[in-house]
């Protein structure tokens, strides 16, 4: 993944403490990621265990991935605090990646999830101090200006500040931890 300067797409909005069991329920952890057909199952079941009322705020009851599909129509996830808490399963960021997510904007992340996103280069995990999950509605069109550190709600004509990516930006720009380690001369090959 090379980092885009502008990420644009439809938002899917979630609340606080979205854990990895909600992102990809445990019974689906058995499919092989190297098998092209099985791999799609992770996209199909991405966010399938989020309770109805919280799925696609503010209304709720909105499916992230339509039944039988394996890509989501939403490219950007907006979430509250502690996104990705719970198990260390990398299947969670991978499932979002397979479903087509390019960026998540959350108030904070659980540590292991955040590491997995960065070291695997699955999407860009932005943080913000704004309570965007109360500001943005599922389906709003969002544009993230990576260089300027801004997220714009094109539907509502509002914009908000993102926190700098900090230390991890180098890894995200390289692509993943392997590319970064090679770039830094820590891995030969």
């Amino acid at each position, binding site marked *: 993944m090379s980092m885009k300067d502008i990420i644009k797409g439809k938002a899917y909005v979630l609340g606080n*403490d979205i*854990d990895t*069991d*909600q992102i990809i*329920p*445990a*019974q689906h*952890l*058995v*499919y*092989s*990621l*190297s098998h092209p057909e*099985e791999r799609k199952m992770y996209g199909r079941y991405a966010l399938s*265990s*989020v*309770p109805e009322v919280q799925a696609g705020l503010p209304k709720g009851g909105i499916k992230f991935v339509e039944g039988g599909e394996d890509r989501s129509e939403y490219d950007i996830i907006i979430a509250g*605090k*502690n996104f990705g*808490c*719970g*198990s*260390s*399963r*990398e*299947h969670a*960021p991978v499932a979002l990646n397979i479903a087509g997510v390019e960026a998540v904007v959350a108030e*904070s*992340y*659980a*540590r*292991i999830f955040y*590491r*997995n996103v960065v*070291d*695997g280069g699955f999407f860009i995990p932005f943080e913000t101090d704004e309570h965007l999950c109360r500001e943005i509605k599922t389906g709003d069109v969002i544009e993230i200006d990576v260089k300027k550190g801004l997220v714009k709600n094109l539907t509502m004509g509002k914009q908000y500040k993102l926190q700098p990516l900090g*230390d991890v930006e180098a890894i995200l720009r390289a692509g*993943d*931890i*392997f590319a970064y*380690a090679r770039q830094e001369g*820590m*891995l030969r*090959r």
Partner: protein
Amino acid sequence: MGMTLTEKILARHANKKSVSPGDNLWVDVDVLMTHDVCGPGTIEIFRREFGPNARVWDREKVVIIPDHYIFTTDVYARRNIDILREFALEQGIRYFYDVGSPEYKGVCHVALAEEGHTRPGEVLFGTDSHTCTAGAFGEFATGIGNTDAGFIMGTGRLWVKVPPTMRFVFDGEMPSYLMAKDLILHIIGDMGVDGATYKAMEFTGEGISMLSVEEHMTLCNMAIEAGGKNGIIAPDDKTLAFVRQRTNRAFEVVYGDHDAGYESVKVYHLKEMEPVVAKPHSPDNKALVREVKGTRIDRCYIGSCTGGKMEDFKAAARIFRRNSVKVETYVVPATTEVERRLREETMDGETLYSIFEKAGAKISDGASCAACLGGPADTFGRLSGSEVCISTTNRNFPGRMGSKQSQVYLASPLTVAASAVRGVITDPREFV
């Protein structure tokens, strides 16, 4: 200023004299653990990045423990175990606890300790968030994903950011009705599920030194439920004795400095504490047991790395030995060693196994994670409808134990056993 226990271990493994919270370091890894859920993905990434003929950095330092989806006919789950088996053979992995063999162990975090892979002063990474359990042995232990694990497999190293340490002091003696589970649920309830995000949680005080090695494991196990990077306890004599009994490998014990800097210090007085539960659907949804007592339940579950160890079953047996269960009660030993000891160790002349059987509990035929994380439909004890369950496990997120409609309360083995006997949530002080 001196360093905390966590800082000191990380500094040593990065070959640095001193480190501070926030520093990014590359550390040398002593043990990498993986299991059947994340092992295959890790192996795939390892091969993709280091080539089809790559060798792991040290075949004695990669420990593979299948434990999650074991007793199921699910074809994908079985295939994962085949992948581990083939890899272990190809790489000459010394510590592979294969399913169906006499080496089979069960739940990885308990197995790591029983088999001597948890040693003071070391750095342990595992592809499971509850790898923090091993902090009970005075080491730095934390969970990682497949990409990081694949990186370690090839290099023996990983970058870490040094966490600041939060200190939790337990003053006074441990009352007989409290268990480590109550203490940690209390802390998580006070701080919230993200209260310790990125931080080390160090447990200390008179109360802690009274607790057994297994109870220390329970405390550290749930550090992740407060978002913690690692839980850690300075090793005491009984911990060192436990480790020495189980490994011949040399290790260097590390202690924190007296003038170490802590981000926060919180003191709990044990005599003021009461048994607690975490209500559905979050480990920080704390209530005192007496506040929810009488809540109707359909099922009790005693098992997992948090609540399926010998100490947990001994606590439950204290209540079951004179009482029968009123609701379906599932008992799942974490490891084959626990399973064996349930049949050997006695209370008032009766084996624990027979105490559970006579009380009417259903005992799993085999050690594994079982319904702690739901799993395939045929998993022992899995919730499949709108059951209300009280469980000794560590997570009660929606759907965690199998069904999105179910409701799970987390509690200590004493509280779960007392509740099993009454058929409603019950304060263990009615029995002990």
